[in-house]
C-alpha cells in the first residue's frame, strides 16, 4: 500500500485493532474464569472478529482476514448452537485457542506497526480452529471437517476432483454473498466453451444451469473445472481473474489414474449425493451458515453489531493526537508563567490598584481552571494497563504450573498518559518477578505455610496529595535476605565486613547486574530487570521502594508525582540564590537556634523534631555558596521528605509559595551530572529570574 495519504488510515486501523484486541482479551479472560461464554460474549466476539476481518481485508492483510473469518464462523455456529454444543473438555481448548489467536493478531499488528512483512504461516492456527469447529458440530470425521473448511478461503483438504482425462483442475470461488453462484458458474462455462471447446473440459456440479441447489456446493466447495490441456486452463485463469464476482481460484493438477479420481468427487461432494446422514447433517449445518452468507451474513452481523453497541453505554468519545495535547500543555504552562509575570510585575509594586487586583484574582482563578482541565485531558485510568497484567498472571501461571490470581484495587485511578505509558513495562516485570520468584512452586508449600493454595497478587493504585502510588503486593515467599546479601557480595556490590540493614539488602535487588536466579528463565533472571524498572520509573519522576517479610511476601511500591510539568513550590533563598522546593516534599518549617543542634560522632548535625532525630543539611555547604546564614537562629529549618528519605534543610528565608512551571535544565548542564546533586530542573519566576528546583531525595543521597 502506498503510504502518503494512507498513513492516517493505517493509524486508525492500528488504534482500532489494538483497542478491539484488548477488549477481546478481557472478555476471554473473564469467560475462562467462568468457564463459559455468555450470549453477550459470543455476540461481542463475533462483532469484534467481523470488524477486524473487514478492516484487515481493506488493508489487504490476508492472514489476519482469514483467521478472523474462521473465528467469526466458529462463533456464529456457537451462537446458533449455544455453548452447550461445546463439549466440556473442549472448552479449555477453546479458551486457549482464543488466546493463541489474540496473540497472533497482536504479533501481526506489531509487525504492521514496525513496517515488517506479515507471516503467511497460519496453517497451524487454522487447523486448531477447524478442528474445534468440527468438534462443535459434533462431527469428528475428517470429511465433515474438510467439508466445513472450504467455507472460507483456507487451504482445502478435499481431494482433487479433476476427472480422468482432464488433469488440469481449476477450483473457482465467487465473492461472498454475490448470489446466483450457479448462474455465474454457468456464465463461466459458456465463456470457456467459446475459448477451448465444450469437449475439452468438464465441470462440477454439472447442472449449474438448471439446478439452484448447486449454489450451496459452489459456495462451500467452489466451482470445479477440469481441463484437458494446460493451455486451456491458463486461458481460463485469465478469464476468471478478470471476472468481477470471483473471489479467488485454485489450480490443481492430477496426473493420477481414473479410479482414484472417481473416489474423489464422491467423498467430497456428499451434498449432491445422499451421503451418510451424519455427514449430511453436518453439511447442512455447515452449509446453513454458508447459505446464509449471501443474504444472511450481513443480517446477523447487523443485529450483532447493534447488540454489541447496545451492551456498551454509548460514550461520546473523541480520540486526540497526543502531540496536540502536549502542545496544549506547553501553551497553558506558558500562560501560567506569563500570568504571574503580569500580576507580579515590578512595575506595579507599591501601587494601590483595587480594580486591577480584583481582575487579577479572577484571571488567576481562570488560569488555574484552565490548567486543571488541560491536565485532566491527559489523564487516563490505569485500568487498561492493569488488565494487561491479568494475561501475564494467567499465562505464567499455566507455564510455571502455579495457581495465582490477580486482584485489582483502584483501577479507575487516573494518571497522566506519559506515566501510564512509562509504568507498563516496569509493572510487567514486577508482576513476572512475583510469579516467578515470589509465589511458591507447590501448593503444598503454601498450605504448609498456612496460606491459600492459590497465590494472590494485589495490584493497586491510589492518589495521595500530589502523587500516585502504585503497589504490587504478592503473598509469596518473600525475599531471602541472606541469599540476596550473599549474591550481592559475590557480585561485588556489597562488602562482607559491613553489616547491612534489611532495607539496604533489599535495595541491592535494584542494582544493575543483580539476579538470584542461577539460571536464566524465559521470564526473568537475566539480572537486567529491577534496575531497568527503577530507571524507567525514575524517568517519569517516580521512586521504587521494596519491602518484604520473609515467608509472607513482597511489596513493590512505585510513587510517582502526578504531574511533572507544573508544581506548587516554596521559594527559599540561600545567600543570593533562590531555590524552589516542591510543596509536596515539605512537611514543616520552623525556627531553631544553635543550641538545638545535636552533633554526632562524625560531625554531622541533627535536630530533634517530635521525638525523632533528623539530619540537618545546610544548603549553603552542599552547594558551596559564598553567602548565606551560618547561625541557625538567623535562618529557617525546613523539614522535608521524599519517599523514605527525610531530613531538615537549612536555608535563609522563605520567600513565598508559587505555582511554577518546571523547565528541564539544558542538556549541556546535565552532562555535568548536576542532577545527582539534587538539582533536577529550574523555573522562570514572575520577574524573569530563574529559580533552581531542588530534588529532595537526590540532594540527600548526594551528600552520603
Amino acid at each position: 500500500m502506498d503510504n502518503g495519504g494512507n498513513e492516517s488510515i493505517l493509524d486508525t486501523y492500528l488504534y482500532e485493532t489494538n483497542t478491539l484486541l484488548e477488549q477481546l482479551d478481557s472478555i476471554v479472560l473473564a469467560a475462562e474464569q467462568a468457564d463459559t461464554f455468555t450470549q453477550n460474549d459470543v455476540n461481542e466476539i463475533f462483532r469484534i472478529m467481523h470488524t477486524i476481518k473487514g478492516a484487515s481485508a481493506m488493508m489487504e492483510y490476508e492472514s489476519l482476514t482469514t483467521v478472523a473469518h474462521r473465528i467469526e464462523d466458529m462463533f456464529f455456529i456457537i451462537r446458533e448452537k449455544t455453548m452447550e454444543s461445546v463439549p466440556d473438555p473442549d472448552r479449555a481448548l477453546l479458551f486457549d485457542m482464543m488466546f493463541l489467536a489474540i496473540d497472533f493478531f497482536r504479533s501481526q499488528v506489531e509487525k504492521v506497526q514496525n513496517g515488517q512483512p506479515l507471516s503467511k504461516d497460519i496453517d497451524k492456527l487454522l487447523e486448531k480452529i477447524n478442528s474445534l469447529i468440527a468438534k462443535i458440530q459434533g462431527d469428528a470425521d475428517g470429511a465433515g471437517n474438510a467439508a466445513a473448511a472450504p467455507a472460507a478461503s483456507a487451504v482445502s483438504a478435499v481431494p482433487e476432483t479433476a476427472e480422468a482425462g482432464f488433469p488440469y483442475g481449476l477450483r473457482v470461488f465467487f465473492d461472498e454473498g454475490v448470489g446466483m453462484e450457479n448462474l455465474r458458474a454457468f456464465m463461466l462455462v459458456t465463456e470457456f466453451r467459446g475459448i477451448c471447446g465444450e469437449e475439452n473440459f468438464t465441470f462440477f456440479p454439472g447442472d449449474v444451469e438448471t439446478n439452484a441447489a448447486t449454489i450451496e456446493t459452489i459456495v462451500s466447495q467452489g466451482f470445479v473445472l477440469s481441463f484437458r490441456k494446460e493451455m486451456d486452463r491458463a486461458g481460463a485463469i485469465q478469464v476468471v481473474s478478470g471476472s468481477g464476482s470471483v473471489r479467488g481460484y485454485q489450480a490443481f493438477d492430477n496426473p493420477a489414474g481414473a479410479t482414484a479420481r472417481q473416489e474423489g468427487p464422491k467423498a467430497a461432494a456428499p451434498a449432491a449425493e445422499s451421503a451418510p446422514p451424519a455427514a449430511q447433517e453436518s453439511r447442512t449445518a455447515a452449509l446453513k451458515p454458508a447459505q446464509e452468507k449471501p443474504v444472511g451474513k450481513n443480517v446477523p452481523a447487523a443485529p450483532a453489531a447493534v447488540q454489541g453497541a447496545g451492551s456498551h453505554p454509548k460514550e461520546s468519545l473523541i480520540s486526540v493526537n497526543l502531540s496536540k495535547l502536549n502542545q496544549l500543555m506547553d501553551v497553558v504552562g506558558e500562560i501560567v508563567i506569563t500570568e504571574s509575570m503580569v500580576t507580579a510585575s515590578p512595575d506595579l509594586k507599591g501601587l494601590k490598584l483595587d480594580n486591577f487586583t480584583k481582575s487579577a484574582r479572577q484571571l488567576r482563578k481562570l488560569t488555574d481552571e484552565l490548567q486543571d482541565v488541560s491536565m485532566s485531558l491527559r489523564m487516563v485510568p490505569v485500568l487498561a494497563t492493569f488488565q494487561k497484567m491479568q494475561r501475564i498472571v494467567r499465562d505464567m501461571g499455566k507455564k510455571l504450573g502455579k495457581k495465582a490470581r490477580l486482584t485489582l484495587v483502584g483501577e479507575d485511578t487516573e494518571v497522566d498518559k506519559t506515566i501510564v505509558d512509562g509504568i507498563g513495562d516496569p509493572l510487567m516485570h514486577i508482576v513476572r518477578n512475583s510469579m516467578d520468584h515470589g509465589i511458591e512452586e507447590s501448593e503444598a508449600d503454601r498450605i504448609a505455610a498456612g496460606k491459600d493454595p492459590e497465590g494472590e497478587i494485589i495490584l493497586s493504585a491510589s492518589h495521595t496529595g500530589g502523587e500516585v502510588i502504585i503497589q504490587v503486593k504478592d503473598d509469596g515467599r518473600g525475599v531471602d535476605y541472606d541469599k540476596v546479601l550473599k549474591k550481592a557480595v559475590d557480585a561485588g556490590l556489597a562488602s562482607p565486613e559491613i553489616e547491612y540493614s534489611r532495607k539496604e539488602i533489599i535495595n541491592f535487588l535494584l542494582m544493575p547486574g543483580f539476579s538470584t536466579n542461577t539460571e536464566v528463565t524465559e521470564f526473568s533472571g537475566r539480572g537486567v530487570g529491577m534496575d531497568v524498572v527503577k530507571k524507567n520509573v525514575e524517568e517519569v519522576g517516580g521512586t521504587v521502594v521494596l519491602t518484604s517479610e520473609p515467608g509472607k511476601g513482597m511489596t513493590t511500591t512505585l510513587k510517582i508525582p502526578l504531574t511533572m510539568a507544573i508544581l506548587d513550590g516554596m521559594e527559599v533563598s540561600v545567600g543570593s540564590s533562590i531555590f524552589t522546593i516542591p510543596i509536596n516534599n515539605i512537611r514543616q518549617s520552623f525556627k531553631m537556634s544553635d543550641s538545638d543542634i545535636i552533633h554526632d560522632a562524625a560531625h554531622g548535625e541533627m535536630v530533634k523534631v517530635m521525638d525523632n532525630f533528623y539530619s540537618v543539611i545546610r544548603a549553603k555547604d552542599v552547594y558551596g555558596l559564598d553567602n548565606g546564614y551560618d547561625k541557625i537562629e538567623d535562618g529557617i529549618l525546613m523539614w522535608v521528605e521524599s519517599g523514605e528519605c527525610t531530613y531538615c534543610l537549612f536555608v535563609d528565608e522563605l520567600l513565598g509559595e508559587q505555582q511554577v512551571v518546571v523547565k528541564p535544565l539544558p542538556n549541556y548542564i546535565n552532562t555535568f551530572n548536576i542532577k545527582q546533586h539534587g538539582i533536577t530542573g529550574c523555573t522562570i519566576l514572575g520577574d524573569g529570574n530563574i529559580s533552581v528546583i531542588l530534588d529532595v531525595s537526590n540532594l540527600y543521597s548526594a551528600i552520603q
Partner: protein
Amino acid sequence: MNMIDDGTSARAGLEEDVEQYLVFQCDTLRIGVRVDCVVEALINQVITPLPMLPDYVCGIINLRGEVVPVVSIRLRLGKPSAQEQSIIVLSINGTQLGVLVDRVDQMVKLPRSSILPMPATSSQKLMSGMSSLPDGGTMLELDSAVLLEH
C-alpha cells in the same frame, strides 16, 4: 544588537569562497565565529549561577522563556575573569549555548582561502583556524562544537 536568527540569510548574498564572521574580544585575543551559528548578542543579561559546575560554566539565562547555559570564554581559556558583560548566543548543532565575552568587536567577510589551520604544535583545541584581519590584526576561528564538550 540583535542579529538575524539563522545565519543562512546573511550568507545568501555571499560569494562561494567567502565566509562571514562575528569577531569578539577575549582579553588580548580576537576570536571569530561563523555567523551561521550566531543567534543573538546580549548585554547586561542576568546570569543565574548553578552550583556544582566547573568555574567556566557561569550558569543559565532566561532568553525569552528558554533556559540557555552560558560559559565564559575567558575562564575556558584559562584566563582570569574580567567582569564581562556581553553574551553571544550560539546555536551549535541545534543546541543553544551562550558565550560570555569581553565585548563584540566587528563583523568581517574573509576569503575562505585566508583561513589557515592552527599550527601543528598548538595545543589549543578550541580554535580551528586563524586568519589575518583587514585592519591588520589576527583572528582565531572558534570551533564551537568543541565548546560543547567538556
